[in-house]
């Protein structure tokens, strides 16, 4: 899939995005999304090493691009951001596809110290994140990069041109908002 992407396109779009052109970002997304969904689906099917984390997956995609000389190393953070968006979409689609043909399971909680908020599933998180984006788009993007893309604070700071401490505070606040949004009383 990647081989068919013309590197000129990627470079031009990337430059535009770095200037702040969100349309360019969305175009890049369309170009690269296919690659990531394949990798993500493979990972989730367990065809690949099951211990592969999102971070690994994203980095691998980026490394491929770098090797193909389609992006420069310093664009890494931007691409990670991009792949975070892809990751979000891929995961939500995966969950939806699974939901279509799954039998009704009883949801059980293994004894852990890690609660599932009211057993909210990823679709609910996705919807809550859409609501957050309406209130504050940038905070929703931070969640996307961090929760879906596994990105480091420092990389997010590069993408958003913010200080690391601002990103960190913003992430903490967004997280609290989402947590509250997923409480059962919100349906």
């Amino acid at each position, binding site marked *: 899939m990647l081989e068919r992407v013309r590197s000129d396109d990627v470079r031009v779009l990337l430059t535009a995005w770095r200037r702040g052109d969100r349309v360019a970002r969305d175009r890049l997304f369309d170009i690269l999304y296919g690659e990531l969904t394949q990798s993500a689906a493979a990972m*989730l099917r367990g065809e690949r090493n099951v*211990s592969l984390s999102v971070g690994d997956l994203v980095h691998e995609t980026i490394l491929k691009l770098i090797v193909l000389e389609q992006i420069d190393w310093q664009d890494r953070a931007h691409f990670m951001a991009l792949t975070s968006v892809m990751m979000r979409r891929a*995961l939500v689609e995966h969950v939806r596809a699974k939901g279509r043909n799954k039998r009704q399971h009883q949801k*059980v909680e*293994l004894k852990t110290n890690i609660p599932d908020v009211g057993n909210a599933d*990823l679709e609910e998180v996705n919807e809550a994140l859409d609501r957050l984006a309406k209130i504050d788009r940038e905070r929703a993007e931070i969640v996307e990069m961090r*929760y879906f893309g596994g990105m480091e604070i420092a990389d997010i700071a590069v993408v958003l041109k913010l200080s690391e401490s601002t990103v960190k505070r913003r992430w903490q606040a967004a997280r609290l908002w989402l947590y509250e949004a997923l409480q059962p009383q919100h349906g």
Partner: protein
Amino acid sequence: MASRSPEARALDLLEQAMGQPSDHRAAWISRQKAPAAVRERARALLDGGADAALVFATGGAPRKAGDGPLPERIGAYRITGLIGQGGMGAVYRGERAAGDFEHTVAIKVIRPGALSGALIERFRRERQTLARLAHPNIARLLDGGETEAGEPYIVMEFVEGRPLETWLGDTPGRSERLELFLAAAAAVAFAHQNLVVHGDVTPSNILVDPDGRPKLIDFGIARPTTSEAVATPAGRAHSLTPGYAAPERLAGLPATTLSDVYSLGRVLAFLVGEVGDPELRAIVARATAEEPAARYSTVEALRADVVAHRGGFPVAAVGGGRSYVFRRFVGRHRLAAGGAATAAGLLLAALVVTLVANARAEAARADAEARFQQTRAIAGTMLFGVYDEVSKTPGATKARETLARTGLSYLDALAADGRAPLDVRVEAGRGYVRLAQVTGSGQGAQLGKFADSTALLGKAETVLRAAYAEAPDDPGVRQAMGDLLLEQAGQNLYNNNEIALGRKQTTEAQAILKPLATRDAKTARAYATAIQTEGDSHGWDGDNARARPHFLRAEAFIAGLPPALRDDTEVMKARSANLRLLAEAQHLLEDDPAAILAMDRAVAINEALLARAPGSPEITRKLALSLWYRAVVLLATGRTAEGYASVDRSVALMRGLRARDPEDRGALQTFAIVGEVRAQALAELKRFPESFAMGREILAAHRQIVARSGGSAGARRSMAATLKTVGGNYYNGGAFADACATWREARGVYEELTRDGALTGYDRTNTLPELTGWMRGGCDPPRPGLKPIV
């Protein structure tokens, strides 16, 4: 900013608050200039989100999304369905054909990455503990292992049951509810007796099977330790079902038998309704007292009160006032008492007195039993579980010391009870031995207090000798006795210089352990160590010809074990130690090829062990020692370059360990030993300045060891030998004055040892004459002239 929505402004405020220290945030928000609604919203978000960080972990999304297709098999089981799934993994239904019936099980698989390495290790150990918990009211743990992908799993009895909530929907009668409660509580009490705490007793963890019997599920599986628990701003621990977890658990303390009592109290309330009978209310109130000490001290005591209540007897929770007891009596005999109330007044009074007295005796007995069980549980957990856990962490010496001290007070309480059953007394004896190891016999990571540990072993001997006399054929007693004798022998040989006594203890240990020698890895190891220690008792006395056959015997014993025992980590450790001693004897008896062969084998074993437990201080030390001794033999046979390389790696390993925990005496001692050979190798390579520097470093280490051991003879003897060697290096390097000063100090130490009656045979016949010879030839005044000292 002004155009932002109130919700966005609340988020802005919340975000700024995140720049404040966590306990000031709420107050900070309240002080800001913003519409009250915005402030309140920000406060609400802040207060409600204690678990947000856990739920939204970095890169956490896929964990929520993914489950694979059903695996075909897990272990020996065919997977037939998914029972459910959660954040940590999935529960499958599995079947296994056994004979002509299908055996159905529930299999829990922990998702990769859901638990840290330490937790997985804990999960494995808990699996072993739980496998022993066979009780009709506990869902039995049947099996466990790891999938091919490395995910740990456990196989549980499949319970065809309904949660307690659903069962209550059938509106069972009051006595049925109490009956069910008593059965569930009995299961928890049983677990406590086996040193297992449930930690999360809730209605949803009690299933009721079609016959109406309760089954406890989710026994402490993958329940993180407190160190893993995340303290939250609100101080609330996670995953504890609200309303059922004891207050101290919510404050982040670990689960105890008393927190289970609390949870059972809540379950009782759930079963009988909060506004039940005043007596039940009193029972619930006592079980769920805020202060753990105010609760029933055991689940058994709680059960006893519920039984008393059911049978119409006075319950302890109400406090035994006279009129209360009387009411209970009348209630129970309502029909009989009704007509004859006045005539029987005297008789009644007598009965009441008897009842009160019985209740008191019963309460006292229950209390003693309760205290006892508690003590046993705490001592067991502390010395065998927690201590091992803490020991794995380099740098935890202080924590170990605290644990040891606390453990002792519990053990004394146990041993003081002469009426305690045999197994309990044996347990106390083992506890003392364990504590002695902890405070400093043996060669593990210890605190270096020889005197304390000798006294502790004495206490253990008192308890265990009596037990052995009483039940000489009991394997548990034998094993405990063997372990004690080995520990004593080790201490007498290595620390107290009581060689003859130590040797006697090793032969007795062998005789006691022999019938059990191939029973399991533990006994095999103990038996091999007993043989080896007998050999070492000769080696320590300088008689290698006598020592060698024992080392060969131990090696032959281990090499001949079935692979399952032979490749056990603990057995491998023992084998490595014995090979080292065998090599030493071979070397001193001038069979160097055999010695090098033995050491190559020992190094290989330790490399394999370190690969099993990377970074382990204990194995690192063992590897360093085997490299060191291989270097000794190589150097002696003139293979200087190879020898130096071997010992240089050894010193580097030990430097690393010392840096990680400066207070670990074992690391210090080993560093001194291996460093000495490196100093010699450097001298041999004519790299004298480096050699002298190494010499100064190891002497400083020895002085520290002597001071910390309270001047024990063994420590002083080691220092004297090192002084002698370091002096030799000075002499060979031409630093004659330094050489003589160092030798003089060595001679001083040997003289002191002689005065204390602690000079060994080897030192008397070999070491000391050689030292005084050198001093005659090369000192007073310091001068050249001696042949190079090796």
